[in-house]
Structures are given as structure tokens and as C-alpha cells.
């Protein structure tokens, strides 16, 4: 079995996918670092101060003014109201939610990457795991060996899991190393608040507690790895079902992008919360942002994702074991 896994990893490494992914991450992190740097400079210039309390107070007043606008959609109002209360809470407890530093950059990067960017990277590896062997015909060479078919697929799946883990590691290390050049490497011990529970337009702060930033980031990475694993599993299933890698990519991309769009407009369509793609933003629950549909929680989203993952895994194994290969 370990030989099989090694063999699969060898294929992935040979295709140089992982290095391409690392290069993409490096370029994007550099871009975002520069953008973030410009933004903080601009903010400092506009407000004429580096005092974060003044900046946060200005953001709060800006939010209050935006909330006065009568032509605002109900869900957007709710979202802003919750953010307003949260920022007020941060201010009252003298905690800076965005102190500059590489760890803060890393945290926001993961938050923004979790629903589209990281799944995309995982897709790059997962999409052609099986389909490319089917279209190139090498699948026959793989299956004529005296190994059970489920073992072949299992070895591919384990290789995929290892790749997901490696992608997370690459993202974490690169985003820390590159942004640190500009923002400095300190800040792992900054306190952050978590445990906000949005309830309609209100924000329940009963469970709010302080945790150091390193723990927060570790939690985010764990959630991001979970999401990436589920997306990878779904992609693997499609890769088993379709012979064409392009079809796999197309379907997954459509699903992921529709998720990003749907999240902004499904608040009145209750049953949409059972779709996997609106449940990808798990880190929002740590932050305490309003969920796309009322009543969604971390436990709910993780269950939905797990069910989708397990079901697609089952489909992949059944289809792979039964399919005629010729």
C-alpha cells in the first residue's frame, strides 16, 4: 500500500503541479502584500494618524452613516449592523483587530482564500488524478497489476490528502515569509476576540473570549484544510466519473463560483444552505460575520461539508470498482 501511495505521489511531483502551485501562491501573496501596504499608507494619509483607535472609530462612524441610507438591502444592513457592533466591542475592549504584521496578513489571507483560492489550488492537483489516466490509457497498466481496484483508488486518495496538506503548508509558510518582509514578523501573541454569535440584527457577545493570534491562525488553517479536503474529494469523484479533465475542471469551477455568488443572495432561499458551496466560508464563524442564511453555524456547515465529502467518496469508490475499462 505505501508503495502505491509513493507511486502516486511520485506522479504528482513529476508533473510539477506542486511547484506551480507554490509559484502561484508566492506571486499572489506578493501582490496582496503590496496592495495591503498601499491601503494602510492611504488610510494613514487620509486620517493623518497611525492610532488604530482613531482609525477604528472612523470606520465605526462610516458604518453608522452607511446604515442611515434608506435604499439598502435588508441582508446588507444586517451584515453591516453586526460588523458595527463587533467593531464597537473591539474598541471597548481595547483590542486592535488588525494590528499590522505578517501573522495578521496571514490570517486575513486565509479568510479570503478559503472559499475560492485554496479550493482552486486543490483542484489543480485533484482534477486529473483519475481522468488523465483514463484519457491517456495508462489506467489499464495500473489495473492489470494484481492489486484490488479500491486499493488503487485509495492510494490516489491518500496522495491527494497529502497534497492538500502540502498546499496548506506552502500557503502558510509563503504568506508568512513574504508579507513579513514588509509588515514585520512579530504579532503571534496579539489577542483576538472570537465567539461572536450573530442573531438576526443583533450580536450575542455572551461567549466572546480572547485567544492569541497564533491559536486563531492555527484554527483557521485547520478549517481551511477541512474545506480543501472536502473540495478535493468532490473533485476526485468527478475525476472518476468523467474521462475529460477539462469537464472536471469546468464543473468544479462552476460550482465554486456559483457558491461565491449565491452566498450574497440566498438569504431568503432557506434550503440553499444544504448546498456545499455556500458552506465553504468556515472562518467567518470564527470571526463572527453574519452567515449567508440565518441559522447556519459552524457545526451545521461542517456537517453539510462532511456529508457531501463522504457521499462523493462512496460514489467514487463504487464507480471506480465497477466500471468497465477497455
Amino acid at each position, binding site marked *: 500500500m505505501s508503495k502505491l*501511495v*509513493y507511486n502516486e*505521489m*511520485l506522479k504528482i*511531483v*513529476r508533473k510539477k503541479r*506542486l511547484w506551480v502551485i507554490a509559484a502561484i501562491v508566492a506571486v499572489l501573496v506578493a501582490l496582496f502584500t503590496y496592495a495591503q501596504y498601499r491601503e494602510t499608507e492611504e488610510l494613514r494619509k487620509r*486620517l*493623518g*494618524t497611525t492610532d488604530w*483607535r*482613531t482609525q*477604528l*472609530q*472612523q470606520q465605526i*462612524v462610516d458604518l*453608522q*452613516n452607511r446604515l*442611515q441610507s434608506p435604499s439598502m438591502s435588508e441582508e446588507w444592513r444586517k451584515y453591516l449592523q453586526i460588523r458595527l457592533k463587533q467593531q*464597537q466591542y473591539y*474598541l*471597548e*475592549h*481595547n*483590542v486592535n483587530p488588525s494590528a499590522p504584521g505578517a501573522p495578521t496578513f496571514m490570517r486575513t489571507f486565509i479568510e479570503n482564500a478559503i472559499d475560492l483560492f485554496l479550493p482552486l489550488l486543490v483542484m489543480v492537483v485533484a482534477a486529473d488524478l483519475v481522468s488523465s489516466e483514463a484519457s491517456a490509457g495508462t489506467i489499464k497498466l495500473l489495473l492489470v497489476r494484481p492489486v484490488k481496484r479500491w486499493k488503487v483508488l485509495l492510494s490516489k486518495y491518500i496522495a491527494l*490528502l*497529502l*497534497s492538500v*496538506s*502540502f498546499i*496548506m*503548508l506552502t500557503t*502558510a509558510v509563503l504568506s508568512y515569509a513574504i508579507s513579513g518582509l514588509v509588515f514585520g514578523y512579530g504579532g503571534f501573541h496579539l*489577542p483576538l*476576540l*472570537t*465567539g461572536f454569535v450573530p442573531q438576526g440584527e443583533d450580536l450575542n*457577545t*455572551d*461567549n*466572546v*473570549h*480572547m*485567544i492569541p493570534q497564533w*491559536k486563531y491562525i*492555527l*484554527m*483557521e*488553517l*485547520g*478549517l*481551511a*484544510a*477541512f474545506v480543501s479536503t472536502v473540495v478535493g474529494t468532490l473533485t476526485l469523484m468527478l475525476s472518476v466519473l468523467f474521462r475529460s479533465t477539462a469537464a472536471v475542471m469546468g464543473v468544479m469551477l462552476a460550482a465554486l463560483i456559483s457558491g461565491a455568488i449565491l452566498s450574497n443572495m440566498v438569504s431568503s432561499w432557506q434550503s440553499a444552505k444544504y448546498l456545499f458551496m455556500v458552506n465553504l466560508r*468556515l472562518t467567518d*464563524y*470564527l470571526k463572527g460575520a453574519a452567515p449567508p442564511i440565518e441559522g447556519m453555524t*459552524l*457545526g451545521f456547515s*461542517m456537517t453539510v461539508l462532511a456529508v457531501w465529502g463522504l457521499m462523493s467518496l462512496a460514489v467514487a469508490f463504487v464507480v471506480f470498482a465497477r466500471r468497465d475499462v477497455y
Partner: protein
Amino acid sequence: MRLGVVGLVIAAAAMSAALWLGGLVLAVQDQLAPPSKPPGQTQPSVHGAKKGDGDIDIVALGDSLTRGTGDESGKGYVGYMVDELRKQTEAPIRVTNLAVRGLRSDGLLRQLGQPEIQRQIAMADLIVMTIGGNDLFRGGEALRLNEKELNAAKRQYAANLDRIFAMLRRFNTDAVILAIGLYNPFSDLGDAKRTSAVVRDWNFVAAEVAARYPNVVAVPTFDLFALHVNDYLYSDHFHPNQEGYKRIGERVASLITLTEENR
């Protein structure tokens, strides 16, 4: 060589996988069974705020007028005032605009209860504010109120204003406070006589209250909008337009002498 790379990748991936799993467990534990220990309120002391650093700190408080609603350039009178002041001084001017659209005097009182707002006020060298327009006009319908209701609203306004000035003076004992008065946006309508009388009355009350406190100046704007009011109003027929804001800004700036301010 090839084998070595693959081995390394596998080892790194397997080890970090343990880390991600740990993070996931932590996240679930932390969110689903959070420790019930809410953080205590730790606030920076209001009086610890530093002043006299050579910069000119201006705090703007109040309603949509201070926010600049109706000015296409978004500057509002605060922006034009600062433009004027920049001609007088080289010192950096820092503006903190805390105005919220639609704010009434009771809303401002509530805002002044927030510690960070108090800290900002304590740091200020100059405070400009507009309040009362929404107490009086309430989006235009208030002028239909009868005499009794108007008087009750006025008394409430005076009481609130008194507490506002008292609070401002408590947080910041020496900054000049410029309280900008009301104008009558309806002075070209049929009811102008009555509406103007009401606005004059409210301005008088505000000036009376301001006079109880040192260094609080009531700045009139009534005259600025008395003639050709439509040339200075935005299309909502209520807020000033760019020209209107420029006039207010210039008037306010003309009251400020920076040499004294900048001791």
C-alpha cells in the same frame, strides 16, 4: 535525487497534516464549547490622551451637515474650513469627523457616552459641531407640528444641548467649541414667516445655552441662507450644496486664529 524530493514532500505533508488536524480540533472545541470567560473591559484612560504635539487636532461632531451630505465633492463645511486653515499654517491638521447622518441631540448625547469618542474629544484642539436640525425638522414634517409640540421639542433640545456642552467641557477643558447654528431651508416657501421665526427661536435658545460655558461659540448661518436660498441648497431642498458648504466653511474658518490655537 528524485526519490529524495518525493520523500521530503511526503514527510512534510504528513507532519503538517497533524498540525491542521490539531487546528481543526481546536476550532471545533473553541467554537462549540467556548470557555465562559468574557474579557474584562480594559480601556485607555481618557485623561492619558496626549495633547500639544504641534499638530492641530479637529474633532467634528453632529449630523449630516457636518458629514457633508449634499456636497458633490464630499468635503462639507469641515473640508472647506480646513482648506482655509491650511492657508494660514504649515502645521499638520488632523480631522476626525464623527458626525452621523440623521443624528439628533439625544443621539449625540449617547455617542458622547462612548469612551473612545471621549478620548478623541480630549485630544482635540478645536471642536466644531452641528446639532438640532433633525430635532427641529425631522425630515421636513416637524414644521407642521403645533405650537405646544414645538415648544416641548425645543425644551428637550435645550436640555440636551446643555448636557452636551457640559460633557464636552468636562472631557476637554480648553478647546474652542464652535456650535454651528441652523438655517431655514424653507425660506422661499409660502410658510416662510412662520418657519423662519421658529428657526430664529431655536438658534436663540442654542446661543443662550452656549453662553453658559466658556469658549463655546454659537456660529450663525441663518443669514447665509436668507437670500437666494435655492442657490445654496442641494437638490433635496434641505442640505446645502457645494456653494452653501463653502460659505459655512469660510465663516467658521474666519473665527479661528491658529496662533492662539497652536500655542
